[in-house]
């Protein structure tokens, strides 16, 4: 029996060796798996699908060049996605799921609740994460592998408020947003910026999932604000709030210092005439032909229509930068070295132009990828356009 056991053991070891050798041979065809983590369904789906589209475009660009040169290997790039449904628990589960499939680099998540849920798990797995969200603690010194696709409201709100005040001369604003971290973290920063510009600001929060905003609108208008700002309310909610504000007789301008989605907001509100006077933060200078060329590149490489949401144009830079950092670090597994390479990379994108690493003053760490953004405006029911605003390095 001992002899049989020894022979079985030897045979098993040999078989295991063959399997491992086969695995090693397969690994010579190097593949980098990029995780795309975000809401792919539910009210925030368009933000997540824009992020997924950006990751797929960056991967397709790399593969079209013959893959990434990582040390001595030429690696193809693939994208694995996970639907968080815009929840913290969904994001945490998603990080575990992606890590179990060999993902070391994650593009996303999109919203504050997701980022809060994903960070501890990603840190435990030592994954590099390029997150968005307007959370006040989106990044920090305690999360050295988490980067932020920015700039955040602390960067872009001041110039937009200044320009809006010049245009509309408002003295008071009522800000409305969901009552979770995705709403409160940005609305409170927006309110502070308005106040710094001499504009009285009130904050009003609603339960995410609210379907009829008529009571909220009544409450908003009780304070007789000059402007109502929909902050980071999902575009569908924001459109409905605007429509119900107009039905209630509010004629003042509408602001939106929050997530993008202007086209959907106009549709849900009932048209540009209903929206009438509107200013908003746009994640990229959307009228720049070089920026719009990203969508043409998407059609060419992926042979389908790009996601509608303009967030894709910003996300693609984060995905490209991550892949460039992997090449520069010469490793697809050591995320610490890739993070170090990423911090050293100059912020310059062929489509969005030159940006800067920011975040030191607000987050305590200079890992916020700040790129030129835009301020859009509709005046008297006419689309005026998106004005380019550049960022300065810290």
């Amino acid at each position: 029996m001992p002899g049989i056991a020894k022979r079985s053991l030897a045979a098993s070891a040999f078989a295991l060796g063959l399997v491992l050798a086969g695995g090693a041979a397969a690994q010579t065809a190097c593949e980098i798996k990029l995780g795309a983590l975000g809401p792919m369904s539910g009210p925030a789906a368009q933000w997540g699908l824009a992020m997924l589209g950006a990751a797929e475009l960056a991967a397709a660009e790399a593969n079209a060049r013959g893959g990434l040169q990582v040390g001595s290997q030429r690696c193809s790039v693939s994208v694995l996605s996970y639907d968080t449904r815009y929840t913290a628990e969904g994001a945490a589960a998603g990080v575990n799921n992606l890590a179990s499939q060999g993902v070391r680099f994650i593009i996303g998540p999109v919203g504050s609740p997701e980022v809060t849920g994903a960070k501890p798990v990603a840190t435990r797995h030592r994954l590099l994460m390029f997150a968005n969200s307007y959370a006040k603690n989106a990044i920090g010194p305690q999360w050295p592998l988490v980067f932020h696709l920015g700039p955040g409201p602390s960067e872009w709100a001041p110039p937009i408020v200044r320009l809006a005040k010049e245009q509309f001369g408002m003295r008071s604003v009522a800000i409305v947003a969901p009552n979770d971290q995705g709403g409160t973290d940005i609305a409170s920063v927006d309110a502070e910026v308005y106040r710094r510009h001499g504009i009285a600001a009130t904050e009003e929060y609603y339960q995410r999932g609210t379907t009829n905003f008529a009571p909220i609108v009544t409450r908003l208008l009780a304070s007789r604000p000059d402007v109502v700002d929909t902050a980071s309310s999902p575009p569908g909610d924001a459109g409905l709030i605007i429509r119900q504000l107009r039905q209630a007789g509010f004629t003042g301008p509408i602001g939106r210092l929050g997530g993008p989605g202007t086209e959907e907001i106009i549709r849900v509100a009932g048209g540009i005439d209903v929206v009438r006077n509107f200013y908003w933060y746009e994640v990229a200078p959307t009228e720049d032909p070089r920026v719009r060329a990203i969508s043409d590149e998407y059609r060419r490489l992926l042979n389908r229509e790009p996601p509608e949401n303009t967030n894709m144009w910003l996300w693609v830079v984060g995905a490209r930068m991550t892949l460039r950092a992997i090449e520069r670090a010469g490793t697809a597994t050591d995320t610490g070295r890739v993070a170090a390479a990423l911090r050293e990379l100059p912020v310059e994108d062929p489509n969005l132009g030159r940006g800067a690493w920011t975040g030191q003053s607000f987050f305590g760490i200079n890992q916020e990828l700040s790129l030129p953004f835009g301020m859009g405006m509709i005046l008297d029911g006419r689309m005026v356009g998106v004005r380019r605003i550049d960022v300065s390095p810290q």
Partner: protein
Amino acid sequence: MHEFLTAGIIGISLGAQYALLALGFTLIFGILGVINFAHGGFYALGGYVAYAAVSQAGLPFPLAVLVAVVATAALGALYERFLIERLVDDHLATMMLTLGLYLVISTSLLAVFGPQSPEFSFPVKGTLRAGTLYLPLENLVVLAVCAAAIGGLWLLIYRTDFGRALRALADDRRVAMTQGMRPGLLFPLAFGLATGLAGLTGALVTPILALSPSAGDPVLVTSFLTVILGGLGSIAGAVVAALIVGFVEAYASVYLGGSTGALILFVTVLVILLARPTGLFGREIRGA
């Protein structure tokens, strides 16, 4: 005073919408004993069918609403006939079947129509104004349809042979079957009637609010809350509870804000259920 009256008008509008939603939900439980987790899905589907009928087929809105009702009723009836019917007495299985159907509907809508809300507006525009008070005409139309639907449903259930047969099956299926009632025919019809009501609500209300593949998520929560408060299976309870939910939501949100308003609503329901655990009209819960 202006806010008080405005909140009252909003409460009636909300209550009417919630009543339409809750009626179908409570009907299915009352007759089949099935908790239909796909109810929100039929609401969203009704909205999209009406939207497609208007924007792609070019139908006038009233006809589009009719198409939405027929489509959602037919899908509901077929689903009951070929899947739920086989496991109708297994509560866990029917829950999973309806929850699965909801996921299939919402994901299919996402795949076909995309994540963004389309432009789908109510054809009746304008707002009635009296001083600072206002009532959008579209809400008035929904109120009228809601009243007609509630009245029609009441007549159908309490004044027709079809309704008597359904109530007999709900009361004691075995005895009803010995009297010649055929659940194989009547259950799909009842299920289709309920899903058709959800489709009607979706077709009418989504152009007033917003249409998206996930529009059914909050609908399910509201419907469930309303029918639990009214007493599972009770038509009168669903209507009364819907109005209570509408008024509490409106007044609490206007005077206490969106976050606290939601809390007050749940606390109110909790207090009522502590006093009457079977709901306001709990005696009418099906006995079968």
